[in-house]
């Protein structure tokens, strides 16, 4: 659970107790999910908003409760949630009188069976549960695991800025009147999720009242600071803030300050952690303020810096995206001007978040590109680079959408693609393709837990040819893919019945008109994604099996599996043979072709599931975070020569230490994979400062993009830096590394993750 960055966090659980009381009452008085949600919003906001801090020019620090309402894990939990371990901790260690302790006991027992996660997991249909029985992927060997959350809302910030709260209210009121007037509604009140539902509109309006309360909440505090702050500059900032907060309650924003402030508070009420196309939704206000002389560049920068710090304060390391650039913006000229100030904010706010993302095209202004390169060169790891020229046509095919829609693509979190305020593609499952290979070798038996974790099939020894074994492997993969796709639909349905998520729904295309919660029919394009881990190791393993068992016949199937079962102890010679088979990432056709075949099988098989289960699309992502390490812990020795428990390769990057032929060959390998049948793949590159500063390196990167490279996450860091950081962590607290989707302070990572990053080649 996150540790939100607030100066003086709440000391006790009185908020949690009050929230629980409100929830109880709401359940007693209402049956409609929207009414219950509204009561919970009222209980949560502005109660969890925290004071303005000295470095802030925007209001809205926040400390989510240990119990509360949310949409995805990083802001506490999905739906109505409880952080049971930390509530228990409070019970065991916090001071408090007898009544307080009774209340804490009450929290634990009350929420045990009532939190959304538990309800949803408990009710998983049997046919799905039979294949993916547990979500405990951190502590158990699992070939595939459900992930319970609704991750990745990208709301229409641009609309919010253009029409403001009053515009939104008007739109809802019009629908409410129509719904009340509709004969069907009067004759028989529609059940939630069916037809036009006046209740949801009433509750949406109620939610916006809560938002206004949040704005007003900060006015006295800002006014007080405007009177008492030490410097005149600070007094002016706070006076401006107080005025802006008052203004946005009943006007659409007309200044950059108002725009940013409104978006922030709205986002916190969803609560969501992706911050959209900032250049599009703030660009016009920025240009207007600047050109009219209302603010100067320095002031604009300070506001964006403050926005970025607030995002960082959420401590949601795998999310917190801010996206700039690319096709499909309403106002490219103004947005591009804003890009420069955003890049500068990214360069100067030297924190982990936001995950600043640049979408670029062949016509991205040189100044924007240069400032992005400068930012990367300073070791910020941002912006993450997304190549529209490759991605837009690829996504049209993968998602079956037109070009205009594809141009609105948004990478969320670790890199799953969605379309701005239109689609929802929460990644709700993961599949460990290397783990599944381990099962396929042994007829479905998992050697780590000594249990059958898949159906019983032929094993390696029963296969006469390599192709036959690959078919066996694919049959296991398919089994888990099909279950995960069904799970995705189940999860949307189950959560949609409990939660309308009104703040999100109101800013998704067409959802107000439909009057349905985002997961109850409100979303135009309900999609899904599944995360894959271990593909590269699986491809390397297949290459070793093909070569050693079937082609060169140096090992019998039995010898190979025995060596693995023994984690190569006493079988070092066999291990060395396996290590010496060509590895992906060296521009070797032998294994690169196997990788491309596996990649396509996975992408296409997953893509087939969408129509079958009733989703607009269902696609895989091969992103990276620390799961290559965590999941790897429970995978035994594998035929690529990898020892049991050690990390798997990260996303599509070559397995650690196996890209021996250098950067050029690695790039040759990675451009062989297709980008028109998945929803996001991540490519990491690391350079030492010295190499990055050489203009020839830039040529290489630009060439990579020109020949089909879709994406790059570039870390500029010295290998020596990492070695030093392990030895003298106190001197390297500001060293940020990316593990794909995750930016992290290196010295705070676990030792084996640190070592894994270090082992990866730095060019």
């Amino acid at each position, binding site marked *: 659970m996150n540790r939100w960055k607030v100066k003086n966090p709440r000391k006790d659980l009185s908020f949690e107790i009050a929230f629980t009381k409100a929830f109880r009452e709401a359940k007693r008085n209402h049956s409609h999910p929207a009414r219950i949600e509204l009561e919970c919003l009222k209980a949560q906001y502005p109660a969890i908003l925290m004071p303005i801090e000295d470095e802030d020019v925007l209001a809205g620090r926040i400390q989510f409760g240990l119990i509360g309402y949310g949409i995805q894990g990083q802001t506490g939990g999905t739906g109505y949630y409880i952080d049971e371990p930390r509530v228990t901790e409070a019970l065991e260690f916090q001071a408090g009188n007898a009544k307080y302790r009774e209340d804490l006991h009450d929290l634990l027992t009350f929420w045990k069976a009532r939190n959304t996660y538990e309800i949803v997991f408990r009710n998983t249909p049997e046919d799905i549960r039979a294949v993916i029985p547990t979500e405990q992927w951190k502590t158990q060997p699992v070939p595939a695991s459900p992930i319970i959350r609704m991750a990745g809302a990208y709301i229409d910030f641009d609309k919010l800025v253009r029409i403001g709260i009053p515009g939104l209210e008007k739109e809802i009121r019009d629908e409410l009147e129509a719904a009340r007037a509709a004969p069907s509604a009067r004759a028989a009140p529609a059940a939630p999720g069916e037809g036009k539902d006046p209740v949801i509109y009433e509750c949406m309006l109620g939610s916006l009242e809560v938002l206004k309360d949040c704005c007003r909440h900060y006015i006295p505090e800002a006014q007080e600071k405007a009177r008492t702050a030490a410097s005149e500059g600070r007094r002016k900032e706070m006076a401006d803030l107080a005025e802006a907060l008052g203004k946005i309650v009943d006007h659409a924003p007309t200044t950059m300050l108002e725009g940013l402030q409104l978006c922030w508070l709205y986002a916190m009420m969803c609560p969501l952690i992706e911050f959209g196309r900032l250049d599009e939704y703030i660009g016009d206000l920025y240009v207007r303020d600047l050109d009219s002389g209302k603010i100067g560049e320095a002031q604009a920068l300070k506001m964006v810096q403050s926005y970025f710090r607030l995002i960082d304060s959420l401590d949601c390391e795998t999310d917190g995206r801010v996206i700039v650039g690319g096709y499909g913006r309403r106002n490219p000229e103004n947005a591009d001007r804003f890009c420069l100030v955003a890049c500068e904010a990214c360069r100067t706010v030297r924190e982990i978040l936001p995950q600043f993302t640049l979408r670029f095209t062949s016509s991205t202004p040189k100044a924007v590109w240069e400032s992005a390169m400068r930012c990367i060169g300073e070791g910020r790891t941002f912006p993450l680079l997304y190549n529209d020229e490759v991605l837009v046509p690829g996504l049209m095919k993968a998602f079956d959408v037109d070009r205009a829609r594809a141009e609105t693509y948004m990478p969320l979190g670790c890199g799953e693609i969605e379309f701005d305020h239109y689609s929802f593609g929460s990644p709700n499952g993961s599949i460990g393709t290397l783990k599944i290979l381990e099962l396929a070798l042994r007829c479905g038996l998992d050697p780590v837990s000594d249990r059958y974790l898949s159906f019983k099939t032929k094993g390696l020894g029963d296969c006469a040819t390599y192709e036959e074994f690959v078919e066996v492997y694919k049959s296991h993969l398919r089994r888990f893919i099909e279950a995960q796709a069904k799970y995705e639909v189940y999860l949307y349905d189950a959560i949609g019945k409990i939660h309308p998520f009104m703040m999100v729904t109101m800013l998704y295309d067409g959802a107000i008109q439909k009057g349905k919660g985002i997961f109850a029919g409100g979303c135009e394009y309900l999609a899904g994604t599944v995360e894959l881990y271990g593909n590269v190791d699986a491809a390397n393993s297949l290459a070793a099996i093909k070569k050693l068992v079937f082609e060169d016949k140096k090992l019998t199937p039995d010898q190979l599996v025995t060596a693995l079962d023994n984690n*190569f102890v006493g079988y070092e010679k066999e291990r*060395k043979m396996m290590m010496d088979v060509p590895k992906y990432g060296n521009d070797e056709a032998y294994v690169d072709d196997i990788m491309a075949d596996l990649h396509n099988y996975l992408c296409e098989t997953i893509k087939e599931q969408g129509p079958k289960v009733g989703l607009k699309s269902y696609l895989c992502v091969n992103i990276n975070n620390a799961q290559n390490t965590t999941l790897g812990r429970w995978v035994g020795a594998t035929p690529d020569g990898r020892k049991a428990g050690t990390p798997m390769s990260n996303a599509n990057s070559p397995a650690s230490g196996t890209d021996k032929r250098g950067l050029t060959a690695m790039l040759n390998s990675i451009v062989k994979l297709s980008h028109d049948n998945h929803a996001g793949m991540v490519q990491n590159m690391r350079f030492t400062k010295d190499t990055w500063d050489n203009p020839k*390196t830039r040529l290489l990167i630009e060439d990579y993009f020109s020949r089909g490279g879709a994406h790059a996450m570039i870390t500029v860091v010295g290998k020596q830096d990492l070695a030093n950081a392990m030895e003298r962590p106190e001197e390297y607290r500001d060293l940020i590394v990316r593990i794909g989707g995750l930016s992290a302070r290196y010295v705070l990572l676990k030792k084996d993750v640190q070592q894994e990053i270090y082992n990866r080649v730095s060019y």
Partner: protein
Amino acid sequence: MSATEAKAWIFDIQSFSLKDGPGIRTTVFFKGCALRCQWCHNPESHVAKPQLLYRANLCVGCMRCVDACRHGAQQKVLVGSAFVHVLDREKCVDCGECVESCCYGALEMAGQEYTPSTLMEEIKKDLRYFSLGEKAGEGRGGLTFSGGEPLLYPDFIAEFCALAPEIHTAVETSGFADRKAFEKVLDSIDLFLFDFKIADSKEHEAWCGAGNSLIVSNLDFLHERGKEIVLRLPLIPGVNDTERHARAVAQILERHPGIKRAEILPYHTYGLGKQEELGMPPYPGVPTQAAIPSHVQAWAEELRRLAGTEVACL
């Protein structure tokens, strides 16, 4: 592979080389050199045959190599109460059989035999990168033959260049090679990166194992033939980072007006670790610290003042 093809021992192929000539290059390191410069950072290049590298820091003491070695070089030795692994270099014949038994990268053979066509297979992967620099004004990339002394393999180089005359080629040479070797590759090489280490021949012999008269005469020869030459200057603290050497270099440049550029190669200590891996005793007079950047800059400035040639620090 044709039976008549030349062969060469190569110990490394480095793609994305940014400092061995113009553009983006691939550098091929040949094994074998007649000089023994004490500061050499590629000691594994000295002899023209495969050699065993042993990286003690990667050894986990599994002792698999002890069983694999037929010559008794890989040994399990009782030290105090524990067995440790020891490599007896006296007994090692560099056969490489033990490498197959090591899964931790502690044992590796330096030196693999190539023919021009097998090398071409490797280089193909990098061809597209060679042209990138040219478009962007960074120069046309290509292949750099380095080493060791690549001119120990003139037939190999000439044959390779004939396979792909369109590739820009450079040779990084000590200059200490037979004149005939230079003649053989003269037409196929576009650029010579020519080392100049010490001006006084006796001193040269003391530090590098041979005098420099052959080197200087080869430089004269290339210059007379109008070849493009970059003069490369290893700058070794306590050996040649002197004003006297700067003046000597300036004189060389004055005598060879066709040389438009000099490149300083500041001393670094990466070679020391490799000496250990090869089991070579360290040279006594070689500094254990890398050249200090500010000293390098000052020396470069001095050279610029004296010579008026473009001087770069790599």
